[in-house]
């Protein structure tokens, strides 16, 4: 058991899985010699060779599309998209092909494939290096969308994603890479995809969230504890499948729900979570269901005052929680 950053947990899992299964390959832009622009794949090409850790041409549709073919012909591809913002040229391959292949072939074909991509903001990345793109994929049957919130989860969820028989999008928050640290067991372990995790028990209200916002919610909860407000935090871990049971359970328990994400408010996954509660736990509620999310502008601007104005912060979470607790 070692203390690792979120980034190291991902790198060590990739290494462990590459060692475990010869059929696994990694590729993408700059992942080989350069070890990735964030250094997530550093050292892997040296260990596993150019055939298994491949610098690919600058073409996301080709990266994902060849991974589909390779998966069907026996490999376990784990391609990287350099930034989640650049996944758009590959959406056709992801949504129209990877997601639908099992269904359209009536189960005759399957696509075991993990697409890793750094996402999220707060790192001066501006409009095109800060985006949260998860809601687009969470709407698509056939895909799974995993977003870890801690180094421990990063490892167990990535191993599960790689072992999964279906296409999984695995989004890594850039601001979490080096800022989040935690204990990570050396041995391989699996965290089931589709099960949410109560990261903190509480009674007054529930925060339902995922990704970097889990740690932000925890910071807010610590502040609020001192003020006598007891917060429960549910980490969704995957936003498709959503763990409806866990969502309803925490909503019923506290009767007050704050949904938090960095992705833009309108059409974000928060709406889906809210709708599940409003359909299946309405009469347990003591207050309106509140969403705190990135505002409805096209990703976050570069200049610090604007970036800060966009970001969901521990302070903003605490403030929204306070208001809800008071209700």
């Amino acid at each position, binding site marked *: 058991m070692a203390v690792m950053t979120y980034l190291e947990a991902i790198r060590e899992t990739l290494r462990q899985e590459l060692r475990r299964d010869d059929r696994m390959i990694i590729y993408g832009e700059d992942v080989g010699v350069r070890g990735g622009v964030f250094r997530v794949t550093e050292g892997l090409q040296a260990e596993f060779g150019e055939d298994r850790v491949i610098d*690919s*041409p600058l073409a996301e549709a*080709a990266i994902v599309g060849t991974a589909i073919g390779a998966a069907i*012909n026996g490999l376990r591809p784990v391609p990287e998209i350099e930034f989640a913002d650049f996944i758009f040229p590959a959406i056709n391959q992801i949504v*129209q092909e990877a997601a639908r292949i099992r269904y*359209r072939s009536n189960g005759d074909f399957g696509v075991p494939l993990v697409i890793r991509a750094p996402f999220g903001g707060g790192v001066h990345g501006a409009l095109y290096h800060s985006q949260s793109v998860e809601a687009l994929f969470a709407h698509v049957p056939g895909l799974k969308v995993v977003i870890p919130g801690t180094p421990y989860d990063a490892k167990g969820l990535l191993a599960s994603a790689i072992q999964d028989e279906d296409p999984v999008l695995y989004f890594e928050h850039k601001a979490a890479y080096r800022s989040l640290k935690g204990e990570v067991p050396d041995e391989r372990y699996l965290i089931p995809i589709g099960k949410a995790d109560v990261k903190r028990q509480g009674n007054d209200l529930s925060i339902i969230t995922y990704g970097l916002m889990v740690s932000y919610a925890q910071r807010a909860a610590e502040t609020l504890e001192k003020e006598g407000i007891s917060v429960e935090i549910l980490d969704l871990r995957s936003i498709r499948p959503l763990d409806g049971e866990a969502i309803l359970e925490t909503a019923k328990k506290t009767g007050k729900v704050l949904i938090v994400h960095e992705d833009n408010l309108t059409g974000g996954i928060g709406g889906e979570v809210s709708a599940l509660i409003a359909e299946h736990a309405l009469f347990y509620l003591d207050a309106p269901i509140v969403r705190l999310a990135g505002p409805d502008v096209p990703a976050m601007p570069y200049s610090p005052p604007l970036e800060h104005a966009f970001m969901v912060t521990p302070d903003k979470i605490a403030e929204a929680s306070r208001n809800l607790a008071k209700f």
Partner: protein
Amino acid sequence: MTPEFQKDIYYHMALARAVDDRMWILNRQGRAPVVYSSNGHEAAQVGSAFALNRGEDWIVPYYRDLALVLAYGMTPREVMLHLLGKAEDPNSGGRQMPAHWGLHRLHIMTTGSVVATQDIHAAGLALASKVLKDGRVSVAYFGEGSTSQGEFHEALNFASVHKLPVIFFCENNGYAISVPARKQMAVMDVAARASGYGMPGVIVDGNDPLKVYEVTKLARERALAGDGPTLIEAKTYRFVPHSSDDDDRVYRSREEVAEWKKRDPLVTFEKYLLDNQILSSEELTAMQQKIKDAVNDATDYAEKAALPDPSTLGLYVYHQ
């Protein structure tokens, strides 16, 4: 090339034409809502299929490729089950529109409707073959219209950089639904693009199955030797509308169609086989009877087969 081999090519071309003709009849009778046809493309499709290790090499077809999948081993029954959306349809269990092929058993990759995505899949199948050294070649089939898509370009570039064992096989019939090739590209030949990727671009008479066989065989050998992909352009023509929903009289003259009909690959190949005594007229008659029986059997079988149970709607969204 043995006489048997040539006769087998002819058989599959004729079988495809007969299945296709039957599909149109079923459509006009209101028994099949939509038909996509290989009518006119048989030489290109069957000739290339016969150059492959059928059932082992991967083919990644498109909706035009009825003759191809028949030559690759799909049975007329399987085709008709697919046409009529029956539960037993091995391509999709009735889920996809007709002509959306896919059969793992025969290494026919599953395909959707979005043109050119399959070009990249073929490169990906070949990437695995390169890593796993499984000795397979992959072949993507596509129309000339689809080469305007970015994914066509990405596939060729990726395959060539990694010297993958893959063949890109273009069936150039001069039209993308109503849009003529001159509005699709500013060059005469799709093959002209190959040199920009550092691969050979081969133009072949797509109405001559033996010529198509030869160039495909060479491309396959090249792929297996580790020399990378080849772009083959088979010049051909579709004799019927784009699909049963189309009306081609709006965009091409009857004279043009008639002109191409003179070079109907089925007629010319049949004549060649008869003229050269590779096929006797008795053999031909027997073959035609066999085809007729197969088509009738397939139609009857498929019409009697059950439709999917609505309760299966939710199956296979994920692995189960």
